[in-house]
């Protein structure tokens, strides 16, 4: 059972790390601000989400596990809102060098 949980952690944390890599590659390679924003939100939501889900079996406590997931939910809410705000800023040209 514990080996299975460890496998779960290894697979999900690795997958999360890959999404961080994808986020960085997108942030560096995509041509304009809006597409870069698209890459960033993947790292926000999926990268952190997979890491959190991977870590849940390792913390040994339901309350702590719930707090872990709460961290992810908070990041998703604020990440989504900030992405919208930044996108509007970019589109309405308030940014000096779009």
């Amino acid at each position, binding site marked *: 059972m514990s080996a299975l949980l460890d496998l779960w952690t290894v697979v999900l944390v690795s997958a999360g790390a890959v999404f961080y890599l994808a986020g960085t590659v997108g942030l560096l390679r995509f041509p304009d601000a809006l597409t870069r924003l698209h890459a960033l939100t993947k790292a926000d939501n999926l990268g952190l989400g997979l890491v959190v889900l991977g870590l849940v079996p390792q913390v040994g406590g339901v309350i702590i596990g719930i707090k872990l997931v709460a961290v992810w939910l*908070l990041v998703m809410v*604020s990440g989504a*809102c900030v992405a*919208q*705000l930044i996108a509007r800023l970019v589109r309405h040209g308030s940014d000096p060098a779009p």
Partner: protein
Amino acid sequence: MTLLFDAALVVVLLGLAAWVVLARNAFAAVAAFIAYGLLLTLAWLQLHGIDIALTEAAIGGGLTGALLIGAVIRLRTAPPAAPATSMTLALAAIAAATTTAVLAACVLALPDPAPTLAPLVADNIAVTGVENAITAVLLAFRSMDTLLEAIVLLFALVGAWSLGADSAWPGRPGFAQSAPPNGILAYLARILPPIGLVIGVYIFWTGADNPGGKFQGATILAAIWLLTMAAGLTDAPRVGSRWLRAALVAGPLGFIAVGVFGSYSAGAFLALPPEAAKPLILAIEIALMPTLTLILALLLPGPPQRTSS
């Protein structure tokens, strides 16, 4: 493996610090400074200072970033200052290199075994009734420092307010903010405050026994209040308002009252009688919390700017 992580962290920290100092674009420097603050939080964790990491996360990740971004954008229209002459640059380089060299020599010469007060704290912490050693130090063993800190914060706010123009006195700090009531910002400012209130009070409350405490909790509450101000849902209070001024001095006065009580009951100013140590520590924390929240939040919008609404 951990040392590898430390080494990578240190390299990125130094790179970001160099960028903050050397970048040509002021906004880029501020953005790098925010990133630097985030990584500093990780450095504190690696140095086993969880309480410090929590403080850095709350202040560096929230308040300082917002303060500096607001300032750098307002200063964008200002004419650039005259660039430093090569003489100044050379002097700066010499001063920096000397400082670093002397300090590095001191670090390499640190005594071994290191002097520490940890055993002393471990021996006496039971008297205070709290389990978090940091809280015990802040509110029992070195409470004079904490009292003076609260007063310094109050002075900083008074200093910032005193920069306001006469015509704006006693008005509200900052500029009037408005946002579309159904927009994203207003949405965020309605979703986060209840959660932030719970987290802030939790961090404050758990501080007696676990990492956390009034500074971290107050910073979180201040940040949440600022968010609602940014979305136009609330407005900063008038600096002349009586309740505001009363709340600002309530914390330090409560602290001093406990101190005076100590000089009667335990023989010295700020001494805590052992049988009542924990309730008194809690009393100080509860008295300081609203004051700290108000000061930390109102330091951001700065001096009063407008007398109407």
